[in-house]
């Protein structure tokens, strides 16, 4: 089966600084993968490289089909006369020039996507007035309407409360079950632990990838960070902690997400 995404040894330099070095992994259709790393570890750069916004200095990205992208947040004036359903429809034809005649087929398709993400109750509200979780659903419907093989989400859980986050994860799990590879960036892996079957862990511009239990281990992460890291499991949660033998010589027991 051709992979939905194949990233082969890409390096990216921004402003003379190497942000990503020799990062490689691949996702099969239906994979649910977390892209985990602290702020500034290069998650957004990696997503932008996959989308083609940033050209890698080495390596290449191969896609198995269309890509859907869900940005972190909509920066919108709440008064904009755009309803949730109009926004979903723009996913289908927002790039097309021509008279905007309404069409019954398109309307049915939008309706279908709105119910798939449980957004029908607020479909006729201005999108700028929706809550963070509701906007996230609309953005996901907007990305899915073109039937992508790969769905990229930039920190979708960052601005959500626990319940809304759990609902979004459940929704994305359903999406993956239909054969779409899902790649979610997050600075905290814990909300995703049960859902994700693969992980790409970014630190120091390098990546470790594989099954979660194979990657999130003391040896692997220590090698990635370049100094001793303890992986501690507490009540089905994972804490990644810089240990006493920290490379910088001082003890800090801060959780590195």
């Amino acid at each position: 089966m051709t992979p939905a995404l194949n990233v082969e040894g890409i390096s990216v330099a921004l402003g003379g600084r190497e942000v990503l070095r020799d990062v490689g992994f691949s996702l099969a259709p239906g994979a649910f993968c977390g892209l985990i790393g602290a702020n500034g570890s290069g998650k957004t750069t990696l997503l932008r490289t996959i989308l083609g916004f940033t050209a890698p200095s080495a390596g290449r990205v191969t896609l198995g089909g269309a890509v859907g992208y869900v940005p972190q947040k909509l920066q919108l004036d709440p008064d904009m006369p755009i309803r949730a359903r109009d926004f979903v429809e723009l996913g289908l034809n927002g790039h097309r020039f021509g008279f905007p005649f309404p069409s019954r087929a398109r309307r049915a398709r939008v309706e279908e996507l709105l119910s798939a993400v449980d957004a029908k109750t607020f479909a006729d509200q201005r999108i700028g007035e929706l809550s963070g979780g509701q906007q996230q659903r609309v953005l996901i419907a907007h990305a899915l309407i073109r039937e992508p093989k790969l769905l990229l989400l930039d920190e979708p859980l960052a601005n959500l409360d626990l319940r809304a986050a759990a609902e979004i994860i459940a929704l994305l799990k359903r999406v993956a079950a239909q054969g779409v590879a899902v790649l979610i960036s997050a600075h905290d892996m814990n909300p995703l632990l049960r859902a994700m079957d693969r992980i790409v862990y970014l630190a120091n511009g390098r990546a470790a990838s594989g099954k979660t239990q194979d990657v999130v281990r003391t040896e692997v992460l220590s090698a990635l960070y370049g100094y001793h890291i303890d992986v501690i499991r507490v009540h089905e949660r994972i804490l990644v902690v810089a240990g006493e033998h920290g490379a910088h010589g001082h003890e800090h027991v801060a959780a590195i997400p």
Partner: protein
Amino acid sequence: MFEPYMLDAWIVATLVALAAGCAGYFVVLRGAGFAAHALPMAAFPGAALAGLLGIARFYGLAVFALGGVAGLAWLKRAQRPDAATALVLVAMLGLGALFLSLSGQYSNAVYALLFGQILGVGAADLPPAFGIGIGVPVVLLLCFRPLTYSALVPDLAATRGLSGAGLDLLFLGLLAVTSAVALPIAGALLVFTLMVGPAAAARNLVRAPLPALGVSIILALLIAWAALALAYLTGLPSGFFVGTLSAAAYLAARLTRRLSP
């Protein structure tokens, strides 16, 4: 007020309102209020220079309006786009002050270009007015979805191959052409006011994009017609009525929205 000699004024007011009401929807959507004010103003010295050189006014207006677009596009890459817009605006107006003074066209010309002389339009003004009254809405409707998409989420639009800078240029170019045509017949103030007031009111009244565009056009038409009728009946300048009626429409729309459940 429907005498034969008033017919041209009615037609021109209708066409200018069609263009401005339609463009205004996108001005508000794209947050281009300052640019929409700056472009008609930037075109204005063109008329003065044309008078000085003895060439047709339209060419002067078009050159300066498009020059304004180039200036805006060039300076927009600077850190502070609003300050850049202000500088383009004063650069053009400074030239306007010079040309007017050199050409000896004093207050009357300034007044007519800024505030319009819609009661004085003639048959010669009709063809260009038809050009923008029909051309601008058609082009904007053809670009309706891309203009909307790139204004809402530039990043997502870029993933679908839409160039934000290119669409910006296209849109500002349309504003410039509208300004160049409408300035001598309707005045800079009327063009700008019809671009901002109706559209800002419309988005408080309806939630969906196409209806908002429709309401914006209808309000622009109503305001233009009312202003023309009031100007005819009272003998006072039409710019006064357009300015105050637009503000009133906006305030009424905001109030309606606040009072409705």
